């Protein structure tokens, strides 16, 4: 994918790293109908978001179609230092994926 779909920020303070991420995605739930054709719009949403640092997975988010369009995600974890690399990747139900690395500041 040419265009990056992720914006990722990670900041460490007092041993706790705060991660904030925005992803660009339609997050189509699969319950909506096309008003013109009356047909259901097929679901297209991110199913899994994985955050890793130092070879360890710190957080896995399992998502359904109930997460908002262009999803926002924030969480905290302990045990990382400034300068460590955090990697966030997502996979959607149609097999698309993207990932991005960011240095923890």
């Amino acid at each position: 994918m040419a265009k990056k779909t992720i914006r990722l920020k990670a900041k460490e303070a007092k041993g706790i790293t705060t991660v904030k991420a925005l992803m660009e995605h339609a997050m189509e739930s699969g319950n909506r109908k096309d008003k013109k054709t009356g047909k259901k719009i097929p679901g297209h949403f991110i199913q899994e978001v994985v955050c890793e640092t130092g070879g360890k997975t710190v957080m896995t988010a399992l998502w359904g179609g109930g997460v908002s369009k262009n999803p926002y995600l924030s969480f905290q974890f302990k045990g990382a230092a400034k300068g460590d690399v955090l990697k966030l990747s997502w996979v959607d139900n149609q097999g698309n994926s993207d990932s991005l690395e960011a240095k923890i500041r």
Partner: protein
Amino acid sequence: MSIDMQRRLFLRGSLAAGAMGLAIGAGLLAPRAVLAAWPKQAFEAKKLPEAMQVLLGGDQAAKSGDIKLKVPEIAENGAVVPVKVSTSIENVESITVFAVNNPVPLVSSFQFGEGAVGLVATRIKMGKTSDVVAVVKAGGKLYSASETVKVTIGGCGG
């Protein structure tokens, strides 16, 4: 009545057949759930206890005052409802967010590795006014907190 409506009614009727249908459904879905890390079955459950049972291994969670669930009292736009869950419970394994009245109550589940702090924030869609339930799994036990969010414009229908 359109064909689609009839189909809806048929689906409802077959759901009402109850436990029998559920058991068959579970049996059919189980192998797929094993193959994929993503718990398809839990994300297809139409009722909160069912989704909890599949995903977290129990449909009962103790109400806990140690969970702070921050949601708006009134959501003007159901397509974007900010949800923030924080907890002081130790050893958090996962935090799961449910919107009880959504077509699929299970919205999002966050599974933590080592060093979990017990804070997540995200934005969810809500079809109509509903309780939002946060379930925290820690040390193999389930704790929950819930808040009602009034939705003026739904975000799930078309």
